[in-house]
């Protein structure tokens, strides 16, 4: 082992992260190399000073409380935490913010009562649980709003599909089609991972003028949601002031959502569907 190699491996030697044979070679080198011995002593001293300074702190009690209170089981405060990162467009007090948390709570409560009055309660339970499509719509709306808060619209920022597409490699168990629509006035600005419908999904972020458009993509099979009927011509829905469209193509489920107008979203969807997937 030459001097350069030894110098490179010194941190690993200090941290006992080297293989036995490497460590023995370093030891042998240290016996004859003043410089390496000095560097090692210096690093050992820095490490000892850092540890002696006891810089590690416990999390402050208020943060512990904030996060503990936020965990479900007590679903209301969890929603309140979300509130910090969301600005609700509507003043709808039965806010959707916590629906993904509260409806199963309802269901749990319903099951308990059901042992007493099975028929009537299960009927009301059936009515209380939103349809899968409705729930998924709400989930996408909530996620879209959340993506606009705390500036986490994109985890990879790039206008180049050849950057965005490889970024998803190894992060997903499918390869989302990444399509650029800059010519059509909808430039791709980035991508991220998100969690929708019980699975990790790809999100491509586009922009129309100043309006972000989130495009959620995941494989259709196994979604178990049943909205995967062959939706040929996607209809545009409105929810809380956002426009949404969803459809299936090439074995993938697509959901697009934006605060841009209905016509703009329709144009986006039409242009997107006209492109061959890459």
């Amino acid at each position, binding site marked *: 082992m030459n001097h350069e190699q030894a110098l*490179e*491996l*010194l*941190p*690993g030697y200090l*941290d006992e*992260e080297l293989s036995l044979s490497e460590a023995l070679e370093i030891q042998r080198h240290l016996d004859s190399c003043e410089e390496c011995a000095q*560097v090692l002593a*210096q*690093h050992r*001293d*820095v*490490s000892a*000073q*850092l*540890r*002696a*300074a*006891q*810089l*590690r*702190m*416990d*999390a*402050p009690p*208020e*943060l*512990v409380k*904030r*996060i*503990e209170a*936020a*965990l*479900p*089981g007590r*679903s209301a405060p969890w929603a309140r*935490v*979300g509130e*910090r*990162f969301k600005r609700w467009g509507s003043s709808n007090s039965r806010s959707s913010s916590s629906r*993904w*948390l*509260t409806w*199963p*709570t309802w269901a*749990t409560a319903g099951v308990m009562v059901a042992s007493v009055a099975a028929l009537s309660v299960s009927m009301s339970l059936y009515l209380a649980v939103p349809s899968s499509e409705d729930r998924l719509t709400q989930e996408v709306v909530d996620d879209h709003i959340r993506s606009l808060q*705390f*500036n*986490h619209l994109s*985890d990879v*920022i790039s206008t180049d599909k050849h950057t965005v597409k490889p970024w998803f490699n190894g992060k997903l168990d499918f390869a989302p089609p990444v399509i650029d629509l800059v010519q059509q006035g909808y430039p791709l600005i980035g991508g991220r*991972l*998100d*969690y929708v419908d*019980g*699975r*990790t999904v790809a999100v491509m972020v586009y922009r129309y003028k100043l309006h972000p458009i989130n495009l959620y993509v995941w494989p259709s099979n196994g979604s178990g949601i049943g909205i995967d009927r062959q939706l040929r011509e996607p209809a545009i829905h409105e929810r809380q002031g956002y426009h949404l469209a969803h459809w299936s193509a090439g074995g993938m489920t697509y959901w697009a959502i934006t605060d841009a107008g209905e016509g703009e979203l329709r144009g986006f969807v039409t242009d997107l569907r006209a492109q061959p997937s890459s």
Partner: protein
Amino acid sequence: MADPIVAQRFKALVLPHLSSAFNLARWLTRNDHDAQDVVQEAYLRAYKFFPGFRGEDPRSWLLAIVRNTFYTWYQQNRGQASATVFDEEIHSAETAAPHPHDNPEAMLIRSESQKRVHQALQALPLEFREVVMLRELEELSYKQIAAVVGIPMGTVMSRLGRGRQLLAKLLAPMDQEA
């Protein structure tokens, strides 16, 4: 998602690492207030992604989320952060003042030497500060650090070496006076 079993598993596996998450966020943001916001957002994300978590090391998994949350925040708050930010920090490291939002009284500084080490670590460029902090304060293995930061183990080692070298320089002049 709000499956009580999932929630319980989350509480048992992820919640105990709150202090680690807070410490990482604190050394990344260099300010307690932002650190708390980053950790809270990271826990929201972690909870959301938790059903997909299959690993054996929830702490590294959580810390990677904290770090990603921080970098998203950092990019948005410091303009377009790029590799040049690190270079500038390297050059100014020796004269760097404590961060204006820093809150030294909150950390119960007990001695002058402790304060000196604290300031030196704060002055370290971000890419070195995070690996040094994960190694020396959180005592993670190279493998864990590689997983949190998303770099090869060889890079963990070289960044630790460079980080300790810079720290030695930052700590040296005062040593001679003392």
